[in-house]
Each structure stands twice: as C-alpha cells, then as structure tokens.
C-alpha cells in the first residue's frame, strides 16, 4: 500500500482491506499489552547519567582543607548568564583560606539563572568549581536558589571525588611550601 502513495488519487480501497487494517491495529495493541512495561519508576529508580553530567555546582577543597578557589572571577567572566558572583579578599598568614594570594570571600551562584553549561568549570584555573551529578534541585523559595559558599563547599559525592582524584589534573600555580596537589 505504501508504494501507491505517489498516485494523485489513491485507489479506493476495498472494505476488506479497511477491515484488515483495523484488525491489524487491534492485534498490534493487544500484543503490546502483554509486553513488559518500559517505565523507569522514577523516584525509586533513576536512569543512569553520564559521568560528565552537568548538575549542581561544588567548590572543591584541597586535602588539607584549604579551599581551591583563589577568587580570580574567571568563572564569573565566563558565565554566559552572569549567575556567578565572586567577591575576593586577600589571604593573610593569620587567616589563610586558600593557597594563593586571594580567596573568595563571597561566592554565590544563582541556580535559577544558571544554564548548566559548565563554562565556569572550564574557565577555572585551579579546578575549584565543578558540576556534580545532582539534578533534583527544586526548592520552596527563590531565595533558596542562591547557593552561597557554604552550600557550594559541601563535600562532593564520593564517586565524583574519586573520579576527580584519579584524573590528577596538573596544578597551574605554585603551592605553599610542603603542600601537594590533589
């Protein structure tokens, strides 16, 4: 029947072929009925995500607890929607937050604006910001979507941390004496 579609006027089909078409349809749906269900039961089961899935952000720390972020604002500059706010401050010997000269005093990401493009991750010279696997970010008020530094510094999920450790990215800037990059 498909090869007749080029004709301008389709041939008037016989009643028998019409009924046969209906029966074919009924047969198809009936066989489908007894095939297994393909639905993923979402909150209990989840579809697998790729290793490089871009979900919520994390700020990383070194093993010794120092923050990686050096407050350079390159992430904020790279961000296409301008959802990152970084206010840097100087590190002092009494108050050393990160290994470099400066650290991020304020680091906020507006998750309502974020498009999860991952440019911040790419731009970061010290691999301080990474996008983790979580995508269930719904919340009850707009204010809660502005992730502050405290929230972003939460430890990464174990498997993601292990993967990043395995990569062992080279460190682009000198470390304080005695420190080893992770």
């Amino acid at each position, binding site marked *: 029947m498909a090869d007749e579609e080029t004709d301008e006027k389709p041939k008037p089909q016989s009643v028998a072929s019409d009924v046969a078409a*209906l029966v074919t*349809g*009924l047969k*198809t*749906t*009936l066989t*489908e*009925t*007894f*095939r*297994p*269900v*393909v*639905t993923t*039961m979402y909150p209990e089961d989840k579809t697998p995500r790729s290793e490089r899935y871009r979900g919520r952000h994390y700020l990383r720390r070194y093993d010794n607890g120092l923050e990686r972020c050096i407050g350079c604002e390159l992430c904020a500059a790279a961000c296409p929607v301008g959802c990152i706010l970084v206010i840097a401050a100087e590190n002092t010997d009494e108050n050393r937050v990160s290994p470099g000269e400066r650290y991020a005093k304020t680091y906020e990401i507006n998750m309502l604006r974020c498009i999860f493009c991952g440019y911040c991750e790419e731009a970061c010279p010290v691999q301080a910001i990474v996008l983790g696997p979580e995508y269930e970010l719904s919340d009850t008020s707009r204010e809660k979507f502005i992730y502050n530094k405290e929230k972003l510094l939460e430890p990464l999920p174990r498997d993601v941390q292990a993967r990043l450790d395995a990569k062992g990215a080279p460190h682009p800037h000198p470390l304080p004496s005695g420190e080893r990059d992770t």
Partner: protein
Amino acid sequence: MSQIYNDPIGHWVVVVVAMTLLLFVVLTATAYTVWFERVALGRIQRRPGPNRVGPFGLMQLAADGVKLAFKESFIPEKTDRIIYVLAPTIGVAAAFLAWVVIPIGLWGNVQYWIADVNVGILIIFAVSSLNVYAIVLGGYASNNKYSLLGGLRSAAQLISYEMALGLALVPTFMIVGSLRLRDIVAYTVSWGPYHGPIPLILLTPIGFLIYIISATAETNRTPFDLPEAEQELIGGFLTEYSGLKFTMYYLAEYLNVITVSTLAVLLFFGGWYLWVVPPVIAFLIKVVLVLFLYIWLRGTFPRLRYDTLMRLGWKVLLPLAMANVIVTAIVLVAVQG
C-alpha cells in the same frame, strides 16, 4: 421473601434498599472502571498506569475524587446559570436511571434487579438518550464557542448513531420475542443434545458489531469522542466545567460506558449464564471483558474526522442494520414457518 413483596410497605422498603445498594455498587464500579481503563491503556502503551496510591494504585480514584471535590466550583460570567448547573445533573441522572431496569443476575431465588419491566430495553434507550441534553445544554450554557461546537457535534452524532443502535438490536428482539431483558438473557435453544441458554451473538454477530460501534459513538468515547476532542475543541462541552460539575460529567460518561457494556453482555453474551460459574460473578467477568474491549478500541484507533463519522453512521451502519433486520426476518420466517 414473597410476603415482604406482597406487603405494600415492605415492597417499598425492599426497593429503596435495593436502590441504595445499587447506587453504591455502581458508583464503586465506576471508580474501578476508571482505574481499569487507566491501567489497561497504560499496558497498551507499555506504561504501568496508576500505581502510587494504595496497592496497585487502587486508591487512585479516592485521591482523584477528593481532589475534584475540593476544587473551586467555578461558574464563568455570562453563562446561563440555571442550565449551566442543571446540565451535568441531567447527565448523571440519566446515566443512573438506566440501571433501574438492568438485571444483574438471578442466583437461586434472589433476583438482583430493581424493576423487571417488560419493555426494559426501551426504557434504557429512552433514558440514555437524555444524555444528549446534558451535553447540548452544557455546551450552550457555557457561553464558549468550543463548548457550543462540542454540543452541536454531540447532538448530530448522538442522533445519527441512535438509529443504528436501535436497529442493531431489533434482530435480537425478533429472535427472542420479548423486550424484557430477563427474557433475552434466558433465551434457550434446543440444538441437538444441547438444551439451555446461549449467547445471542451466535445468532446476530452483525448486530453485535453494529451495536458495539454505535454504542462507542453513543457514549462519546474514542474513536468517536468528537464532542470533547481535546486537540480541536479544547474540551468541547467540558471546557468551562470544573470541580464537582466536571466530576458529574465524568461520572456520567463512565456510567454510560458500564451501562452499554452491561447491555452488550445481557443482549449478546448470555448475561449471567456461564457454564458452572455462579451467576453474578459470571456477569461481572463478562462485563469486565466487554469493558476491556472498549478500552482496547480506545487504545487502538485515532479519532474519526467529523464527515467520516457521519458517513459511517448514515451510509454504512444504518443500511447494514436495516439489512440485518430484513435478513433476520426472512431467516426467521423460513425457519419457524
């Protein structure tokens, strides 16, 4: 038992109790028909269907009911208020009324029906035709072009298919010689060694075919759900209805589905007679199977275009039904002399 029936007050007590019981049974049946439909449709599309509320999602309808009941019962401006409120009530009332004469079973000496009327089937047709008023009036009163279009379509569709529906059943009456539903179910034949009730579909297969198509159209179900065609008419006559009034339409629709399925079982599948299975249970099994047929049709066929709908009704089903009547008449005369 018969003494209670003979006593005028006792008779009324029995009838009222039976009616209340039936109301609950039918309402519950409606709820689980919706559940059954959603699960079956899901399976057809390889989804699980509702499975969150209660075991197997069986409490889904309770959840839906609570949701619908607590929704704001909104009446839009510039509607014809009286008719707007009255229309869904007509639908539900008509749908329930049909159950007055539907016999569910005969188990020993206990009769599972309210009224045993000698023109039962005519009453069902008369009452179920009232459903068109619910839809037309609802569509008219809503003051919405989509509602009005839905109502108009419905009027044309129901009138067209009612004729085929009625004619499709005429051969059955001719064979049985009675309009009483109980007689039709109890129709017995003596074929060689076999003596007993038979499913009448063996004698009127074409009648059944026309019945099932016309009944689908009568109840506004896919593939004949033009009055509420979501894609073209938003919701047809349902567009402006919400809350409890919407629930009433919804209820009426499913009640009608159960009614026509029940009628199919009574008229074509031998009612409550099924081998050794107890009568009421046999009836239930058959109704569920016919309901599945309906859902299966819904899960399979796309909606008809309006002109094809009319053509099917007037040019195919009606002549076929008439021919069926004439051929049956000739055969009956030839056989019975």
